Structure formats: C-alpha cells, structure tokens
C-alpha cells in the first residue's frame, strides 16, 4: 500500500485525514483506489476523460508524475504520493 498525502482542501473528502493508504501498481491505480474509497475525491482529481485535472499536481515522492510516466508511473509500497492543488491564501 502506498501512502498518499492529502492537501488541506481535500481532507474533508477523506474524513479529515492528512494521509491515507491506497493500493495499486501505478499512480492511476492508486488514485482510483483512493477515489473508490473516498468518492468525493473523484471529481477533484480526475477530469471527465479520466486524466488528472490540470490544476492538480501529483508527485511520486518528490517528482512530478507528469515528467515521469503520468498515471502509468509504477508505484511501490514504500512510495509516497503527494497531491497538491494550488493555494492562494496570503492575507
């Protein structure tokens, strides 16, 4: 099971957790497993065509999956996925 770090704006969708575990062979499978267990994350992560929404970045450990193999990037049990939507608070 890989670890997924959940950003503040998505925590309500996963019962308030900061990180959760999900299983899968690659990034797409792991995130789809997350969405299966926490349906509220589905629309926030994925566009209608099944690709990641352009405003969400996903990192495998510290690397952007878009420069790796995208959703097909292989994920091991000890890996951490970081989900990161943009934030703009400053005041």
């Amino acid at each position, binding site marked *: 099971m890989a670890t997924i*770090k959940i*950003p*503040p*704006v998505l925590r309500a969708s996963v019962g308030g957790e*900061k990180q959760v575990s999900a299983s899968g062979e690659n990034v797409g499978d792991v995130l789809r497993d997350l969405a299966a267990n926490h349906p509220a994350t589905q629309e*926030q992560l994925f566009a209608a065509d099944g690709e990641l*929404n*352009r*405003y*969400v*970045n996903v*990192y495998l450990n*510290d*690397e*952007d999956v878009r*420069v790796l193999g995208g959703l097909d990037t292989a994920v091991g049990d000890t890996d951490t996925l*970081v989900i*990161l*939507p*943009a*934030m*703009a*608070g*400053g*005041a």
Partner: protein
Amino acid sequence: MSPSGAELLKQVKSQIDEIDPSKVRELIGEGVAIIDVRETEEFAAGHLPGAKHVPRSYLETRIEGVVADRDAQIVLYCQSGNRSAWAARTLEDDLGYTHVASMTGGITLWKDRGYEVVVPRGLDAQQRERYSRHLLIPEIGVEGQQKLLDAKVLLLGAGGLGSPTALYLAAAGVGTLGIVDDDEVDLSNLQRQVIHSTDRVGVPKVDSAEESIHALNPDVNVVKYPVRIDASNIMEIISGYDVIVDGVDNFPTRYLLNDATVRLKIPVVSASILGFDGQLSVFKPYEGPCYRCLFREPPPAELAPSCGANGVLGVLPGTMGLLQATEVVKLILGIGEPAIGRLLLYDALGATLTEVKVHRDPDCPICSREPDEIADEEMGVFPDYEAFCAAAG
C-alpha cells in the same frame, strides 16, 4: 635573552613566503583569495580589488568562513607588510593553510606603484552599528550590506505574509520597500498582521506599514501604492523592482503577477497559506519554472478556498513570510541556493517541511516564449477566467 619585536618580525618574515605587489596584481581575478587583515576603518578607506576583509584580530575565528580550503592559494596584505606577515605565520603554523603569502610593503607599496585601489562606498557610523551583525558575516560584509541598501523590493500585500516580510526586510536594511495594498487595518487582521497595531484600526495599511517600518529603520524608503493591482497598472508599478514578494490572496492576481514578471524578468518569491499549511517557491524567469509551469490553471472556485474567508493559524504567515524574506535577501546578495525549481510544503501541525521538484514546462503558455511575444491582453488570463471570477465573487 628574548628577541626584540623587530628581531622576531624578521624571523617570522624569513619563515613565510612574501610576494611582490606586481605578482599579486597578476593574481587578481585568478581565483586566489586576497585577504586584507587591517582594521575596519583602514579597509573602508580603500582596499585591493576583490579583497576580502578579515581583521587580524579575528583571523583565527573568521578565516574559515572566507577560505575553507586549507590548500587554497591565499595572499594576505596589510598597510606595510608586517601585520600580514604575522597573520601568514598564524595561518600556516596554527591553522594548517598550505599556500599562504604576505604581500611585501602592504597597500602602501601597492599605491606607490599606482595600482588600482577600490574605495567602498562607506556606511556611516550609525549604519555600521545597526548592521554590525551583518558585517560580521563574511557572505554579507560591507559589500553585501550596500547591496541590500541599494535593493528595491516590492511587496504585494501588507497582510499576513507581507507584515513579517516587510518588517524583517526593513530591519535588514533593504533600501526601498514598495507596498501595494488598498485595504485598511481591521481588528481581525491583528491576530497575524504584526506590522499594524490596535490604535491604527481603520488606517490605510500602506500608511500603517510605513509607520512601523520607519519606527524600526528610518534608512528605508517606503513607496506606497494604495491601489488594487490589475492589468492596467501592474507593468507600471512593478517596473524597476529587483525582487517581488507575492503574498496576494487570489489566483487571478497571482497569474497576472506571474505573466508580468516573466515579461520584465523580475524574480518573485511566492508563498501561500491556509489553515496550518504553507507553500513557498522562488520563480526566477527563464532560469527556473514560472508559476504557470507549476500550476497551469487555478482550481475551480469550490476548491480555491482563498476566495472566501478562511481560517489561518496566526503564526503561520510569520513562518512563511520570514522564509520569503530569507529568500529575498539571498537573491539580493546572490548567496546560497534559492528555492528555484523547488516547492517547499510546510505543515505546521506535523512540524514537517517537504520539498517537491518543479520543472520548467516546455509548453508553458507564458515562459516558453520570449518576453516581447507576450501581449498585454494575455496577462493574467487563463481558461475559464471569467467563470472563475464570477464564481469566486
């Protein structure tokens, strides 16, 4: 019988390498460390080009900060060649440096030969005292402090992030601080916006910030912009600044700022905060990714909580704002490794700092093109911009 001072000096000089000023002149700019071991006032009156200042009285404690490599080639000089001879012996015998020479005749002979002397623009006595802890750091010194005094930094927002950033940049002696904010101080700001105060509730934030900055450091020139930044004024406002500190609270302005700063090639130190979490990165146009490389488009309004009133831990903007101030100082001084191409994620509750890589996007709609190819109408625009702003209210 103990030797006299003159005899001892002669003895020391026979044990060390001495080098003629003409040879030293050839070594300037060749990677050799030239160290002036005289007192501060003597150094300020004029020194060799490129010389670093390590007073002989602090030699043992400070030399490693200037020259860490024991095998580096070092030339020491003083006024006439005596103090530097003692210093050379100390470096070799006590500290293990292997390639040290003392310049014969010191700066007096150097000047007699008509060689170039650099007179640093001086700090006055008060500035010397005020910035003394900077002057003690070899990476800053008088030269670095002068860079800070000459620097122009623009703060977008005198709010949560802008407050601590402005105060510390002012304290550090950044000479010009521009502040853009069209808001007035509200009681609910004071849980975190430490540049303002209870008796200034209702006062324009730019005026309140100016008062605090001047109380802390009258050296700082404050330029006030009590306006909301938009496409019509951004180019005029930000032109001429060396670094911009982004602490704005909405996406449209962040994209607008990104596009304008890419066009003008001005680095932006960007941070954002929400709840107990903060993000920080440095966007240096064409050297690293820009904000659009990181986030091609903003999230829909329901996932962009910055648009509404949201909670934030009062000390969090302090933490993130001071990380920003640190990056600003590094950029001005040209030291260290700014967070270019890296996004730092701070989790205050977990007390963790995580880092992810940010790459330049070869298809970036803005920074994959030359500055003069970016048109006014494109700035700050992203897909569904109007729907975004309508939903955000």
